[in-house]
């Protein structure tokens, strides 16, 4: 057991437990806050994988934007779901079974894939600055410029789409935009 392994086990335990509480909490605001903890755990795992830029992006986008939007939506729609009513539908046990089955299958398959075996160790990182490598790759014509542009078009479409969808029926400018 090295220190890195102990840190990994602690962080992933927190992450997995928080994820379980996300789907198990009766109170949706609590569920959303557990989601924040789970996302933060994944951000720490990114740091362990030496992808510090992605860790910061995880905090900015997932924790700072997506999770807060979810909390916002829960607060706006708070009246309909009382916590005393069951929070899961009547087929929840099938869902649980399916998830468990999938997990077992994935673990079994993982043990047979050679590149996932425990003997595979981290390769040395390249010499150059990873951040500038990523930056140039995203705008390089031989790199990922097309997916990058498609992603920006997707974001624009999502922005306009959510504006149109969430537009109030009567034009009372009461709400802010949720994008």
């Amino acid at each position, binding site marked *: 057991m090295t220190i890195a392994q102990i840190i990994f086990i602690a962080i992933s335990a927190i992450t997995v437990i928080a994820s379980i509480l996300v789907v198990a909490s009766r109170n949706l605001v609590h569920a959303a806050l557990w989601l924040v903890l789970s996302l933060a755990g994944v951000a720490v795992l990114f740091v362990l994988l030496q992808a510090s830029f992605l860790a*910061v992006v995880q905090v900015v986008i997932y924790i*700072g934007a997506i999770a807060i939007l979810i909390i916002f939506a829960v*607060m706006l729609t708070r009246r309909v779901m009382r916590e005393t009513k069951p929070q899961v539908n009547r087929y929840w046990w099938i869902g649980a079974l399916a998830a468990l089955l999938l997990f077992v299958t994935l673990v079994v398959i993982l043990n047979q894939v050679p590149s996932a075996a425990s003997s595979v160790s981290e390769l040395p990182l390249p010499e150059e600055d990873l951040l500038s490598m990523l930056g140039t790759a995203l705008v390089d014509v031989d790199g990922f410029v097309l997916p990058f542009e498609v992603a920006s078009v997707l974001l624009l479409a999502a922005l306009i789409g959510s504006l149109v969808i969430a537009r109030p029926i009567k034009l009372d400018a009461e709400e802010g*935009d949720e994008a």
Partner: protein
Amino acid sequence: MDIPHLVEWTIESIVIVVGLIAGFAYLTLFERKILARIQVRIGPNRAGPWGLLQPVADGIKLIFKEELIPNRADKLLFVLAPVITVVPALIVLAVVPLGPDMMIFGHNVTLGIAGDVNVGVLYIMAVSSIAVYGIAIAGWSSSNKYALMGGLRATAQMISYELALGLAFVGPILLANSMNLMDIVNAQRGLLGWYIWLQPLGFIIFLLAGIAEVNRDPFDMPEAEQELTAGYHAEYSGMKFALMFMAEYDKMIAVSMIAATLFLGGFWGPFVEQIPLLGPVYLLIKTIFLLFVMIWMRATLVRFRYDRLMAFGWKVLLPLALVNVVVTAVIVLVGG
């Protein structure tokens, strides 16, 4: 990760945190004094000479107030919310360089904890995006409709203005060609090198969005006394209220200090190269000037209406910030 560095970081962290706490206390006095002067009053002048002990008296009063927790509140979150609000305000300044390198007892000491980290600007973005949580949780856990409204307004306002704030960062990043705050500061030597001359629009957008981020007048909708009684901290009392209050003022200090770093040349000023210790002093002077501007705006301007606030953020500030980014990028690309 040797011992002298650890000692250096510990001392600097303690200095920053203690400085922010003391700064909060005296910023309240500063604000009351200036508001009083602008409104042709005298301001607090009973506790100590020129009212200098007023923050201490306020602190003692708040310690002895009764701590109330509403009956139907979510108790754990209610207690946790002030802490979550304060922490981002205290840690955001970690990446701001406070002064140039200097020699102390034969060690090369950098003033500022992590001014040289290469994702400094992203760190500020990340921390400021976490800052929403304390307010949202405080509003929700109080189980009070005014608090909830305040929390909702604060959340919507902060995520809206964060976009303009983030885009205002891009100008200095492009000009300095770095996300490292130390590089950005070092690129602004001399009064004419300040980025406020190259980025006047960026500076104004940053200041406005920053004021909206910390929920100050004229963007203090989340705590508008007249319509929401006090917004998200309506149910807070005693030291928990003091923590909420402290977070707000520390965020003001942080926004001013970051604006001074990005646009006003940070710690550079006359004779800093000869006497490095002057660096923090210049940074402090610039910060206090920006704080004065914020208080001045509070004394002068009336509160926005809520829908106009959102419309201003999305329809005026965000397009302006985008135009600013595009123009800056083209000029940097063409002019080298």
